[in-house]
């Protein structure tokens, strides 16, 4: 089973290499970008079925020692990693198939497809890795791949800064993350995840809160949480399928996955949990408000991802590890679906703007149906999967006891508000794209079919789990048992995912209230944006993400630029002055000596003679003194 997992994480990397080596032959690229990822999906499914609910299965290969550490590389399969791997491979194959026609005609498609495969391989490495160093390698490869993929359209002026921003912001979190991992490994005397978890369980860590905070920085960067969230909306400059991959299965999911993986480290200290809950509360509400105001449909979905990830982080802050992972799973399904469907709509309409859309219900039946399912799931309407995911987290917050009680209250209050806001922006997106009147501008492809088959089939395939993953709750604590305990052990008492009565009632009230408000605003003028009427004067602030970028500009960018200018000034005028001074000084001295070179032989001889006389005098003087 571990061998299968190893092959599953290596196959997409192989696919990436072969895809990149194959040049521009389209059939070659299409085959080698999809087949290895598809095979990896089969393998991850086999691993997940084979794993059952039996603890952590580790298999490592020793590759020698490095200093005080014995280095072993290998795979570690738990219920958690098995199920996340299925999500990763499943979304990746959908994205690859979707891309064959969506980007198949573009000149840089081969490199794009290779990078997606590499991205998938990196995420599977993170998921299956048996030790933290290999996990970090996969983590960093993902960072590099996201940089390249977000900057795929580098000829677009907004794509270049977006990719650099994504790289820098995630890297700002990755540096503390690296130190956190080093601290964990040094204190546990091993980088093996099992050993680290065992050391945590035996209370052998010296400063677990500091380690948890360091690791949390990396998670905030990768999972786009406040205050490192603003790269994700900007990352929409990349191709749409990339957004589906980054937002649903890889990259942002990696942050949540690492918290769940090293959960005991985070749960040791209540301060960490409260900080996580506060960050989650700020992010989920703020991002949901921003999503409501956006006019670019991809940005709506991007802020929605930020908000939903905060939900998961909130779930983790209140001790709801299984609930958060369940939400991650269903969110992966419906968010991939939503992005791919949005991609179809954007290609058809030729614009990202909500104002250019409307009334597409009958023209794009497949996109309409699947996106409706996705949005119903996102909004948390029963019986779609998102409803159960959200209720599981809210239930965990409501039932949190002991050290989880204080974060539980924070998450519960903001979670309920966010549930309403989520429904509001989902409804606004749905109405704006598919209902209401056509915009005045004619659509680009009036007569053609909705989209090619390879784009529609992934939509339909993703709509199935987006609609039906709620079945999982029928098994009660079965899902939690499958995931395994905090330390990767089997048979831990798992949490029940069945939605609780009171929180369900409250959140449905919020959903109906906010949704109804949006619907009423929309009914008054079907062509207008309900956000304009409802938000009024605060709308510009929300469209610009609370001007958070300006804050970063003032707090980070401008001081950095000023420091760079200062360094440049010091370099040009202080350090270089010494360099130039030495050169000029040498030349000045040389000029003095040049003046002695008169060309008169007799002058030279006189100098020589004087020198000899002086030397003789000195010699004689020294001789008499001593």
């Amino acid at each position: 089973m571990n061998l299968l997992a190893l092959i599953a994480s290596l196959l997409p990397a192989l696919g990436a290499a072969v895809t990149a080596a194959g040049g521009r032959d389209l059939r070659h690229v299409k085959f080698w970008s999809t087949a290895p990822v598809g095979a990896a999906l089969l393998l991850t499914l086999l691993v997940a079925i084979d794993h059952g609910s039996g603890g952590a299965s580790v298999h490592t290969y020793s590759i020698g020692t490095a200093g005080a550490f014995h280095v072993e590389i290998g795979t570690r399969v738990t219920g958690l990693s098995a199920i996340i791997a299925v999500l990763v491979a499943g979304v990746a194959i959908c994205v690859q198939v979707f891309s064959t026609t969506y980007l198949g005609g573009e000149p840089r498609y081969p490199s794009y497809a290779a990078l997606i495969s590499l991205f998938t391989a990196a995420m599977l490495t993170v998921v299956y890795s048996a030790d933290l160093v290999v996990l970090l390698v996969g983590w960093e490869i993902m960072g590099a791949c996201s940089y390249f993929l977000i900057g795929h359209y580098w000829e677009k002026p907004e794509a270049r800064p977006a990719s650099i921003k994504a790289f820098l912001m995630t890297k700002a979190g990755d540096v503390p993350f690296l130190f956190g991992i080093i601290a964990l490994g040094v204190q546990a005397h091993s980088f093996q995840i099992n050993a680290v978890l065992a050391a945590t369980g035996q209370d052998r860590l010296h400063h677990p809160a500091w380690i948890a905070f360091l690791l949390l920085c990396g998670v905030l960067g990768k999972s786009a949480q406040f205050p490192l969230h603003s790269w994700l909306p900007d990352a929409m400059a990349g191709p749409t399928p990339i957004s589906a991959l980054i937002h649903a299965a890889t990259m942002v999911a990696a942050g949540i996955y690492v918290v769940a993986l090293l959960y005991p480290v985070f749960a040791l200290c209540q301060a960490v949990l409260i900080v996580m809950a506060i960050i989650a509360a700020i992010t989920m509400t703020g991002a949901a408000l921003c999503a409501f105001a956006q006019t670019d449909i991809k940005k709506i979905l991007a802020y929605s991802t930020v908000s939903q990830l905060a939900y998961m982080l909130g779930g983790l802050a209140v001790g709801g590890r299984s609930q958060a992972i369940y939400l991650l799973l269903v969110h992966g399904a419906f968010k991939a679906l939503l992005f791919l469907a949005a991609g179809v709509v954007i290609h058809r309409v030729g614009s990202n703007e909500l104002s250019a859309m409307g009334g597409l219900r009958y023209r794009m039946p497949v996109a309409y149906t699947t996106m409706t399912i996705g949005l119903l799931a996102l909004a948390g309407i029963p019986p779609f999967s998102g409803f159960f995911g959200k209720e599981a987290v809210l239930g965990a917050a409501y039932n949190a006891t002991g050290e989880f009680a204080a974060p539980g209250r924070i998450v519960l209050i903001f979670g309920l508000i966010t549930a309403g806001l989520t429904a509001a922006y989902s409804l606004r997106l749905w109405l704006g794209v598919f209902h209401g009147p056509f915009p005045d501008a004619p659509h680009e492809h009036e007569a053609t079919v909705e989209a090619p088959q390879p784009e529609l089939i992934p939509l339909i395939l993703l709509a199935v789990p987006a609609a039906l993953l709620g079945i999982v709750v029928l098994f009660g604590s079965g899902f939690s048992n499958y995931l395994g305990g905090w330390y990767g052990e089997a048979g831990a008492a798992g949490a029940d995912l069945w939605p609780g009565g009171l929180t369900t009632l409250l959140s449905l009230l919020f959903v109906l209230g906010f949704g109804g408000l949006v619907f009423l605003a929309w009914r008054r003028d079907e062509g207008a944006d309900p956000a304009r009427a409802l938000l009024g004067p605060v709308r510009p602030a929300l469209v610009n993400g609370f001007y958070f970028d300006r804050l970063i500009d003032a707090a980070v960018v401008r001081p950095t630029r000023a420091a760079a200018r200062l360094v440049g000034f010091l370099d040009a005028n202080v350090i270089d002055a010494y360099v130039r001074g030495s050169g000029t000084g040498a030349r000045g001295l040389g000029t003095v000596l040049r003046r002695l070179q008169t060309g008169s032989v007799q002058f030279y001889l006189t100098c020589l003679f004087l020198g000899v006389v002086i030397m003789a005098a000195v010699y004689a003087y020294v001789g008499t003194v001593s």
Partner: protein
Amino acid sequence: MHAVYPLVLGALLFAIGLYGVLARRNAIAVLMAIELLLNAVTLNLVSFSAILRDRYGMGQIFTLFIITIAAAETGLGLAIVLLVYRQRATADLGEQRALAEPVEPVTADELSPRNVEAEVAR
């Protein structure tokens, strides 16, 4: 004979020769002054050889060598002077300045950073 006579004579001859080499402008006169220097040295060698009662007469042998070399050197020197005179129509040593270094002053421009950047760009 007291040893001081030949030595003082040698010193006087050397001083005259030195003056001639360092101060005279005429190349022929300088050559003659060099001869004086050489002869002052040979006088010293001979006198020390006698004073120290050198069994092998090394001073005399050296003197013979120096006389030979001085003859050759004077011939060579005269040839050079002749060539210089033919080329430049003068044998005045004060005007033979072909070996002088031209001196160009350091300007303030070389100290400014902009100039350095311009040089780098070039």
